[in-house]
């Protein structure tokens, strides 16, 4: 099939099926009937994952052809394709799960019939994810899970949780971990909302008390969960560099507009601060574009991994400048004070990026080791049985 044929086919299909959007949800954590219906259509027409093999719901297209499909969908604003590039759970399954599990879960994931959540962090394992203490113990053809996870988005609605947990305590920390797709809707799983410093509760704690996961839902093999997790984390990191949450009321996103509204756009100190901050965001955009271009040209790019670190800096700097712009108004908050509320919210929420998904400090370790090739630090707990590792 020529590129021209393909372009025609996808455009024809979209012309025939795509209608002006209603309330289709883009979030990874949520779904609704309309979203499910459209994604099912896309799935059945094999547009969901164009580059995947034909036997696994795809069309076996190459990169260039996949781009044609993605661009065609983007042109009309239709979601659902390109999931071979961004659907984290589906990709994880394709790469590491048994054929049985792939067949069980992937169609639902691509059709957005199934939603997932991430069960990674624990109170005692934040930066050090390889130190998780949630345990899964074999019991015939299933595993029994006990322990606690934290910082889980979408846990209240998710059908499955992507769970990293310990299955062997007698080997070093990285060698005793396993990765499961755990059914969330069962008695052994309790979800409690976790209130953030912003006052919101977008995250949850998840408690497992003899929760059950079928042995068939193990991904990547017993005690081989660390590698599966690494793939999933790299994906999460690169996505955190490209986007960040806006404000609650939209009253403080644009620094120039904020300064103008405050009557302070002529303040020479603020002008320098604003220029510096707007520049940081532009530079990040330019970096990301260059990274993308370099990857497409086959050059490996060192820039990609910088995105999350850059975004953290951007968000904290913007927060500082916003506060300087509104000044004393930052003493206020709440619904009746949308500007102050946004400024204060964004200042606190910046920590979501500088701490969540690996702190800035962890990101710098990763960049210096994986991109620059600097030596790892001595790790005292790397080669001893996990049960001898200190925790606290």
């Amino acid at each position, binding site marked *: 099939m020529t590129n021209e044929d393909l372009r025609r086919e996808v455009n024809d299909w979209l012309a025939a099926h795509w209608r002006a959007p209603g309330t289709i949800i883009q979030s990874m954590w949520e779904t609704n009937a309309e979203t499910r219906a459209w994604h099912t259509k896309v799935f059945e027409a094999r547009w969901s994952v164009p580059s995947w093999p034909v036997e696994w719901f795809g069309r076996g297209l190459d990169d260039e052809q996949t781009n044609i499909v993605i661009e065609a969908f983007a042109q009309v604003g239709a979601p659902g394709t390109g999931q071979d590039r961004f659907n984290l759970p589906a990709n994880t399954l394709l790469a590491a799960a048994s054929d049985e599990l792939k067949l069980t879960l992937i169609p639902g994931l691509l059709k957005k019939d199934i939603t997932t959540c991430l069960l990674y962090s624990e109170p005692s394992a934040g*930066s050090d994810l390889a130190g998780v203490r949630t345990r899964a113990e074999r019991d015939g053809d299933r595993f029994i899970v006990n322990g606690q996870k934290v910082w889980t988005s979408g846990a209240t609605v998710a059908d499955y949780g992507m769970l990293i947990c310990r299955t062997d305590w007698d080997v070093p920390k990285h060698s005793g971990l396993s990765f499961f797709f755990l059914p969330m809707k069962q008695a052994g799983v309790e979800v409690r909302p976790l*209130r*953030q*410093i912003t006052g919101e509760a977008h995250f949850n704690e998840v408690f497992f008390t003899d929760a059950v996961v079928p042995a068939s839902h193990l991904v990547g093999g017993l005690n081989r969960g660390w590698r599966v997790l690494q793939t999933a984390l790299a994906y999460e990191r690169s996505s955190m560099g490209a986007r960040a949450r806006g404000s609650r009321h939209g009253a403080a996103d644009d620094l120039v507009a904020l300064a103008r509204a405050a009557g302070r756009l002529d303040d020479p100190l603020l002008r320098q601060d604003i220029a510096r901050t707007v520049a940081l965001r532009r530079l990040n955009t330019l970096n990301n574009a260059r990274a993308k271009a370099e990857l497409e040209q086959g050059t490996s790019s060192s820039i990609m991994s910088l995105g999350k670190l850059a975004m953290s800096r951007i968000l904290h700097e913007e927060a500082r400048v916003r*506060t300087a712009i509104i000044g004393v108004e930052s003493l206020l908050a709440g619904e009746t004070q949308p500007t102050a509320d946004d400024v204060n919210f964004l200042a*606190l929420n910046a920590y979501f990026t500088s701490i969540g998904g690996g702190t800035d400090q962890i990101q710098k370790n990763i960049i210096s080791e994986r991109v620059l090739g600097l030596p790892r630090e001595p790790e005292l*707990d790397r080669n001893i049985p996990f049960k001898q590792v200190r925790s606290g």
Partner: protein
Amino acid sequence: MTIATTLEERRAIAETVGKLLAEESGEKRVRAVMETRDGIDRELWSGLARMGIAGLLVPSRFGGAGLGPVELELVAEEIGAALACTPFLSSSVLAAGLLTASQDEAACARLLPGIAAGTTIATVALTGERGSWQPVDVTVRAEGTKDGANDGAFLSGTASYVMHAGVADVLLVAAATSDGLGLFEVASHGAGVAIEALPTFDRTLRLDRIAFAHAPATRIGGAGRPAIDAALRLALVGRAGEQAGGARRIFDMTVEYTKTRIQFGRPIGGFQAIKHMAAELLLEAESATSAARDAALQLAQDHDGADEAIDLAAFACADAFAKIAATAIQMHGGIAFTWEHPAHLYLRRARAYSYLLGSSDLHRERFLTKISAQSHDGSVAP
């Protein structure tokens, strides 16, 4: 107005206050009070009043302890460290300081004993919507008052960012008169006074906007400006003390946490990234303490350089507290991103106090104006 205390006496005062706060104003109590309507801990305030803290700056002939800026600063360090929800800064520092500086004996005799006893809560309305705490920002106007006349005045206009007006018994208001800024006493529940609570980001601090519509008022003292300046000096020393104390407390909590939090098989305080952040913050914390204490000492000794020292303390303590509280969250990691962890309470306070009573930029500008005047004389090298 200062009764000299020895170093030991000063330490004893601070220690006693610190002990009371540790017992009566722990995090749990602060969180409970900050959710109440009034936002102040009346029980704690009675206890502090019994110890003489409510009347710390009130001259002894009006029932106070008659102490000065040095003791104020030390006590403020303790209050700031505990994030105690009291009208200390509003009633005992700003209002008491303003009354004492007004040299209006009648007004002092009328109001100071109650303030010192903690039975009267007074507050001061000094700034308008711009919240600059600069005289030019006063938008309340007095009418029907004659020069020096003590009654028969009426106030109109708006004052904003007034601390604890909602729970105050007495409002002391700066208003424009035909002979410059004047001070006025207004009953908080009197006619023509509408107090609207402002929703605050730091819930341990309460602010109100007051609209005066021909509100009956009693003039206090003569020219208001010198008394206002004197009260603001004390309030900035108090603010600096609270900031230094708050900065030190959240810093200490953070260092302790990094000693006990284990990741990668060892305490995170053993990693250079954390160690270096801690070392930098220690410098900030110590500098804030030095600046606050020096400002207090200079003011107590009525040195020429007192204003300069106060400006320096104002921006140095504000910036240090903000940096320490912000970095503390990062050093804690995820746990400090939860509502239940106290770190964000300190960050909220640090942000609020960065603008209450004037911004760091403003104080830096003032500081530079002063030192550049000296540098021109050749009298002082910076």
